[in-house]
C-alpha cells in the first residue's frame, strides 16, 4: 500500500509539472497546446544526447533541455501564434495551428532521433528500502527535483514581477493591457515558460523510463486529462490534477493489473461522471 502511494507521489510530481506548463499556456493565451507532449519528448531527447551520449553532467543536460524548449516555445509564440491569433476570425483557429505544430515536431523528432526507444545510464545507483517501500534512489532524486521545480514555479508566480503580471494577464487580458502590462511580452514569456516545463519533465523522466519519438501524443492526452480533473487555467488545479492522475495510475495499475488497459478505461469513465457533476474540474473557473 505504502509502495503504491510512494509511486503515485513520484509520478504525480512529474505529471503536475507537465500539467502546469499546459495550463499556463492556456491561461495566458487561451490556447490548448496540442504540441505539449512533443515538447516533452524533445526535452527528453536533448537530455539523452547530452547526458546519455556526450556523457556530460546530468545537470547540464537538464539545463540544456529547459533552455532549448524555452527558446523553441518563445519562437513558436512570436512567429506563429501571435500572427494567427491576430488574423483569424474564430479563436478555435489556434487549435489547428497547435495540432499542425504537434505534427511538425513529431516529424522533426522522428528525423533527428529515429524511432528507437532510448535510455540513459542511471543518475544515481541503488535502491532505498524503508519498511515495505522499495524506491530506487534515482526516482527519489527525480521526484524531489520535480517538487522543487513546482515550488519554484509557484513562488515565482506569487512573488516576482513577471509572475504577478502573468497572473493579471490570465485574469483579464484587456484589463491587464489597460493597466499597462506589456501583454505581448508576457504572452511570449509564458509560452516559453510552459514549453520549458514540458522540456524539464522530459529531461527528468528520460532517466527513468527512457524516451521514444512516438509518445508525444499520449503524453498530451494525459496532460489534457490532468487539466480536466483539476480545472483549466488554474495553477492549483494543474497540480491537483497531476497528483490525482499519478495516484490513480499507480493504484489502478496495481489493482487492475490483471485486466491490462482497463485502468485507463476506468479512469476515463470516472472522469466523465466527475465532469458531469463538476464541469469545470476541481478548481477551474466557469467558462464564458
Amino acid at each position, binding site marked *: 500500500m505504502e509502495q503504491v502511494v510512494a509511486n503515485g507521489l513520484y509520478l504525480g510530481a512529474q505529471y503536475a509539472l507537465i500539467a502546469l506548463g499546459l495550463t499556463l499556456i492556456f491561461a495566458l493565451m487561451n490556447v490548448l497546446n496540442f504540441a505539449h507532449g512533443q515538447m516533452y519528448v524533445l526535452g527528453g531527447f536533448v537530455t539523452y544526447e547530452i547526458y546519455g551520449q556526450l556523457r556530460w553532467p546530468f545537470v547540464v543536460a537538464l539545463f540544456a533541455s529547459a533552455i532549448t524548449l524555452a527558446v523553441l516555445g518563445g519562437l513558436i509564440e512570436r512567429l506563429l501564434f501571435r500572427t494567427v491569433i491576430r488574423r483569424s*476570425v474564430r479563436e478555435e*483557429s489556434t487549435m489547428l495551428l497547435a495540432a499542425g505544430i504537434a505534427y*511538425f515536431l513529431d516529424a522533426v523528432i522522428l528525423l533527428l532521433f529515429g524511432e528507437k526507444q532510448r535510455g540513459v545510464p542511471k543518475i544515481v545507483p541503488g535502491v532505498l528500502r524503508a519498511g515495505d517501500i522499495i524506491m530506487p534512489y534515482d526516482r527519489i532524486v527525480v521526484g524531489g527535483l520535480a517538487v522543487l521545480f513546482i515550488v519554484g514555479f509557484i513562488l515565482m508566480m506569487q512573488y516576482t514581477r513577471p509572475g504577478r503580471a502573468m497572473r493579471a494577464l490570465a485574469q483579464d487580458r484587456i484589463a491587464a493591457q489597460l493597466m499597462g502590462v506589456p501583454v505581448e511580452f508576457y504572452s511570449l514569456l509564458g509560452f516559453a515558460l510552459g514549453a520549458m516545463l514540458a522540456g524539464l519533465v522530459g529531461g527528468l523522466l528520460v532517466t527513468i523510463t527512457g524516451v521514444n519519438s512516438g509518445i508525444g501524443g499520449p503524453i498530451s492526452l494525459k496532460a489534457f*486529462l490532468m487539466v480536466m480533473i483539476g480545472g483549466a487555467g488554474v495553477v492549483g488545479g494543474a497540480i491537483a490534477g497531476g497528483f490525482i492522475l499519478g495516484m490513480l495510475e499507480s493504484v489502478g495499475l496495481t489493482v487492475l493489473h490483471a485486466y491490462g488497459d482497463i485502468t485507463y*478505461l476506468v479512469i476515463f469513465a470516472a472522469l*466523465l461522471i466527475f465532469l458531469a457533476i463538476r464541469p469545470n474540474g476541481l478548481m477551474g473557473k466557469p467558462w464564458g
Partner: protein
Amino acid sequence: MFRPLRLAALAVFVLVVFLAVPLAIKAAGRTDFYYTLSSVALLAIASSGVWLMFHIGRINIGQGAFALMGGYVSAILVTSAGFSFWLSLPLAGLFCAAVSILIGLPILRLRGVYFAMVTLVLTEVARLLALALPITNGAKGITSIPAPGAIGAFGVTLVPAFDTFAERNLAFYYLSTIMMTLCFAALYRLVHSRIGKLFVAMQQNEELASSMGINVPAMRILAYAISSFLGGLAGAIFIAIAQSIYPSSFTVNDSVNFMLNCFVGGLGHVFGPMLGTLVLYFGWDLLFAIGQYQLLIYSGVMVLLMLVLPNGLLSIRLPSRRGARK
C-alpha cells in the same frame, strides 16, 4: 425560387464526380484512385459532422469514436447477426446518434477547451472499449466482413451485389460519393434553414439564445446526434470497403484530422470540410513520394497555410467581389 447559379454548380459537381472522374480514372488506368476518392468522400462525411459542431460553437475532437463505433455496429450486425449491409448502415448511424445523446447530456454542458478535451478522450475510450469488450473481439478485430449484397424490390434488382462487379472499388466509389452528396445536401439545407440560424445564434451567445426562448440544451443534442450519425455512417461504409475492423481503425489522429479538415476548408462554409478533406488527403498522398520527409512537409505546409489563410481555403475571395460588397 429559382437560383440558376446554384443549379449550374450542382450540375457541374454531379457531372464531375459521377461521370468525368470515373472516366478519367478508367482512361488513366489508375483504378487505385477509386479507393482513394472513396476514402476522401467518407472522411468528408465524418468531417461534416465535426463542422456542424463548430457551427454551434463546439470543438468536437471525438468523431473518431463514432466512426469506430459505427464501423463495429455494422460489422457485428453483418457478421454475427446476419443483417444485410444496407440495413446495418442506417442502424449504425442511429446507434451512434443514440449513444451521442446519452454522452451528450452531460458533456455538452462543457464549453471551449473543456469540451474539446473530453471529446478527444472519447476516441481513446472507444479504442479501449473495443479492446476490452468480448463482442468486438479485442485486438484481433473483426475480419472478412462480406461485401454489400444486392438490393432488390419486387424481384427487380436495384443494386447488384458488390461482389458481382468487375471493379468492386468502382461500386464503392459510387456508394461513397452518392452518400457524400446526399449528406452534404441535407446539411446544406439544414444550415440554410431557420435551424441553421438558431445554431449560429447559439454559437454566438448561448445565454442570450436561451433567453430568447431557444431550448439550447435540446438543440445542442440535436446537432451532436446528427454529427455522430454522420460519423457512424462514414465509419460503417469505410469498414465495408476495408472488410475488416480493428480497435485502431479510427484513432485520436483521425479525430484530430477530421477537425483539421474543417479548419483547412474553412469553418464559414458547409462545403469547407469537403474541400479540406480533399486537399489534406491528397496532399498527404502526393507527399508519399518524398518518403521520410512526408510528415515534415505536410505539417510544415499546414502551419504555413494557417499563417497565410487563418480562416481556411474558402475564405479566399476574389478581390473584385470584396470590392463590390463594400
